[in-house]
């Protein structure tokens, strides 16, 4: 297990020494190997615990924890990271040219931070200790901050700082929460925490609400996700923000009382966040900013799902995967248009883009299907949310209608956006030949997301989730 995780870490430091093409290929492979392993792990229902180092009280043991939940999150992280790595090559070539920088030397810097960013997220989901988790959270923040700072769009330095401050507040709040947990339990290893107290829970929750983000603290996200270089957006939005849900999920599995006690307000908060952001999507004219708002809306699903018992928890995980696939594809489509049409992001200047970039348009359809949960793995996410809803609230008409409305909104803005950008009278551009690396990775993700509703992949994922989540929750909420 540890060896598998070391591969991307080692490659992170080796890749900058290679030529760009080789570095890209090697980085992609270094994420595909753990991807295959995660599927194997899910299929075999593996639960791995591998100690790394035992630190003094109250920090406790650092260990690698590979259970069904880690594997499910890692599945999305590995696939998306690998595909976006491939996509980076042509995209960053375009970006460096636009910025007037020399390609090869810049790319070495870029690929290092990119790999570091992705690897830290991968390690985060396999961390068996809150401090270890926090360290990787901050590494991923630093790496992504630098990527935005160096290669972002618009007022990139300001945006990067803004992103850094917000996420750092989130990290700090969580850290204080973790330390409080440490002071009462004497350890931060998942398996030796008995209970998380109120203040600690509140701080962790608030921190992760900023990261997730919920309504209110969400204001940083449209800036950061829209102005980051597109491959970074394609990691930030699909993977990083959802890790907020992962942290809450881990805390929940250890000590679920907080979410259970404040179930109704959190549920309402999730619904309001999701609907709020859903309506905002309709009014955006910047493709990437639009996608950023849709991320907020989708993360509202996770907040809703947290309140819905066992099936809700499974829905959180599926929703993370489905959103990761969908949003990665969509950000890459936005980037495809940017790279081919010299920074074209304004939707009012688009229309009938299917005429010019048919492959990208088709990929965008796959992305929007993922958001709407149509014929993709997201379908199970929605199904489990609805089942959890009935399990938890019974036939509470207002709760049911609210969730149905949330689902309707995401379907509507998906296809409305598709219509605005890709259908209608062609806007009068030249047809271009799209670099294969700018569209093929999108289809790989899209096809895999569809395969996940059919056997055998559907059975592998969902059976493992049932075994993992249900077992932990039935045992009274102690992580392995």
């Amino acid at each position, binding site marked *: 297990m540890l060896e598998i995780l070391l591969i991307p870490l080692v490659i992170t430091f080796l890749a900058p020494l290679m030529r760009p093409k080789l570095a890209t290929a090697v980085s992609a492979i270094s994420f595909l190997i753990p991807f295959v392993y995660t599927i194997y792990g899910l299929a075999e229902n593996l639960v791995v615990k591998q100690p790394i180092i035992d630190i003094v009280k109250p920090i406790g043991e650092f260990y690698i924890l590979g259970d069904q939940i880690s594997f499910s999150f890692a599945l999305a992280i590995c696939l998306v990271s690998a595909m976006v790595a491939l996509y980076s090559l042509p995209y960053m070539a375009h970006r460096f040219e636009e910025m007037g920088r020399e390609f090869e030397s810049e790319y070495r810097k870029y690929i290092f931070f990119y790999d570091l960013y992705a690897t830290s997220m991968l390690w985060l989901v396999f961390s068996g200790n809150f401090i270890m988790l926090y360290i990787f959270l901050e590494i991923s923040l630093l790496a992504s901050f630098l990527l935005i700072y160096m290669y972002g769009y618009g007022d990139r330095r300001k945006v990067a700082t803004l992103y850094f401050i917000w996420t750092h507040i989130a990290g700090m709040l969580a850290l204080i929460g973790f330390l409080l947990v440490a002071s009462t339990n004497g350890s931060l290893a998942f398996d030796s925490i008995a209970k998380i107290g109120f203040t600690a829970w509140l701080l962790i929750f608030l921190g992760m609400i900023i990261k997730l983000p919920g309504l209110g603290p969400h204001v940083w996200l449209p800036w950061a996700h829209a102005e980051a270089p597109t491959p970074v957006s394609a990691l930030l939005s699909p993977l990083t923000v959802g890790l907020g849900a992962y942290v809450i999920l881990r805390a929940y599995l250890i000590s679920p009382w907080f979410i259970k006690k404040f179930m109704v307000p959190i549920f309402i908060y999730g619904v309001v966040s999701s609907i709020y952001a859903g*309506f905002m999507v309709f009014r955006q004219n910047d493709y990437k900013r639009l996608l950023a708002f849709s991320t907020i809306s989708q993360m509202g699903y996770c907040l809703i799902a947290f309140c819905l018992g066992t099936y809700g928890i499974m829905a959180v995980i599926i929703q993370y995967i489905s959103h990761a696939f969908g949003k990665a594809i969509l950000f890459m489509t936005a980037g495809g248009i940017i790279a081919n049409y010299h920074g074209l992001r304004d939707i009012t200047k688009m229309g009938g883009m299917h005429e010019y970039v048919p492959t990208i348009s088709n990929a965008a359809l796959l992305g929007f299907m993922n958001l709407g949960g149509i014929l993709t793995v997201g379908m199970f996410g929605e199904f489990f949310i609805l089942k959890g809803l009935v399990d938890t609230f019974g*036939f509470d008409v207002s709760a049911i209608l609210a969730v149905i409305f949330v689902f309707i909104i995401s379907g509507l803005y998906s296809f409305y956006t598709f219509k605005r950008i890709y259908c209608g009278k062609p806007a009068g551009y030249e047809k271009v030949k799209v670099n294969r690396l700018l569209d093929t990775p999108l289809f790989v993700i899209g096809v895999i997301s569809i395969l996940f509703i059919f056997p055998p992949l559907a059975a592998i994922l969902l059976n493992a989730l049932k075994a993992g989540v249900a077992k932990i929750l039935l045992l009274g909420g102690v992580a392995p």
Partner: protein
Amino acid sequence: MNWEIVLLFVAPVICSLPIAFFWVKEPGSERARKLPILSVFGLFISFLIAIHILLTYPNGTYTIPWLPDYNLNFVFIFDYLSKYMGALTAFIAFMIGLYGLEYMKHDYRLGWYWFFFNMFTASMLLVVYSDNLLMLLIGWEGLGLASWGLIGHWFRDDDEIAYVGIVGRKVGPLKMYWPPSYGGWRAISTIRVGDMPMFFAVAAIYALTGNLNISQIHWGALFSKIGAVGTLFLMICFLMGPFTKSAQLPFSEWLMTAMTGPTTVSALLHSATMVAAGTYLFIRISWYIHPWALHSVPGVEMLYYFVLLLGLISALYGASVAIGCLERKVLLAASTMSSLGLMFGCAAASYWFGKLALIVAFWYLLTHAFAKATLFLVAGHLIHATHDRFCCGDLNLAKKMKTAFVATIIATIALGGLPPLTAYWVKAGMDGIMHHLVEMVGSLPLDLLILTSLLYSAFLAKFLSLNFWKGDKYHLHLHGEKLMPFAYACVVSMVFLLLYRIVTGTDPLVERHLLEFGLEKGSLIVGLGVTATYLFALVVPRIKALSPIGTFLGDRMYLPALNDFIVPSIGWAISKLIEYTHRAIDWFCHFGLPEFMLSVSKRIRSIQVGYLRVYMKIALAFVMAVIVVSMLGWL
């Protein structure tokens, strides 16, 4: 058996992949234009398998493991309904596929077209044969997606022939014309509104019973458990799916603008897939709910009464709209809505009348599918030949397009309910059922049915008359089509097969029931009335004096306002409000707060200037403050 079932759904999709990929690589090349034959071959495979299933498979279910841990599996059901419906779908799809080879020959986006066309068929077959509701939802979502893709097929919006409505016409704030991209959006948005409640209902059924196999769920026990209000809520949520897919009021608008798609798509959409899926599903679940045995369960009667009225009112609305329509395809679309309403109404009558009502509704579905597919295919041929969406043509045209002319005559008579062709017997069955209902629920259903039937035959005659006899002037461009007439000739001939089964009483479930209904006095009177209106409308297809009413009806009684004005206006108002809120938060966090902090910092820094007098002042102020506080304390 295993591979055959899988192949039934997979073959069309797999066979359409070559063109889908190749078209991206070489759009419009000669080689790419040959590949659609392969797609049609895929449809042909499905057709053969469906026929094989119809003829040889025993009734029962067949399971392929999917998520056994959750008690969710791919369960295929082979019973009376699915066998007939599957064969019907596969046959019509194959025939339309053949027709499409010629009709879409010069299209600019064949990869997209064939992929979604075949996916459409495969999805419908999945809906037809599935017993598991979650698996059915895969097909259901596939139908929605494929219909969106096909309705908006001509995404460029550059050809007037693909629009619905008169381009440029406005009524108040409403634009009364719709381009293809808008048609697609309307379809998917309406369907989404129905699918999500349905999805909830499926999840709720799963949560309450732990089982999603339609034939295994104990519906009666489920309904008793959740009570009358629960039953109504659950089932209306569930039926929102069928209602939107089958375009019942007030969700009918998308179906009218679905005519922006290629005619082949309209033909498939309106006969055997998509819209039929809604009614089919309602018939299928009623088949296993056994509503006629649930008279003691509260809520069920109310539910079926609601569906009965909704169906019949939608039927009347659709028929009235069709009376006022002058566009070939929109007229047929409105008539489809009307037929679907009749199917819903008739199927809902099963609560009072028993299973035979479902069988009659199903037979109406079959008859309608063949006849409507024929009419659409003829309409497509006419549009091709005259380059006009609106009804036009005269006897000269009829002479030149004999097959189309004859097919239209047969289809209109067979569908309109003129004795002694197919729909007469089926509609006689409906008359009989509604007559039976008079004692239980009053005469309203019967009145609605008869009124709808009269209007129905009138606009079918109008369609025939305005296209082949008394229509406007036209320009004819025949291209020597062979496959197109062949396809609709084949499809229309199937109404005779149905007729044969009805008249001879050889069908195992229909037996001689329809024959008996048809020979009753009441049915004969209605049949004569229908014939009279048909003949009248044939001779007088347009009445000038009534044209204001015609415009009102043809504008669909201004129901488009709901989709195009009322709902969007509310949505935009909310989103505007939300945007202002967002801007306020954004301004506060990213401008207001930093600026405030900056100014505070500036103030504080201004103290640190190094002059002694400033520090003296501060010290003095402190002393003063201490004195004031201690004075207050002393007082």
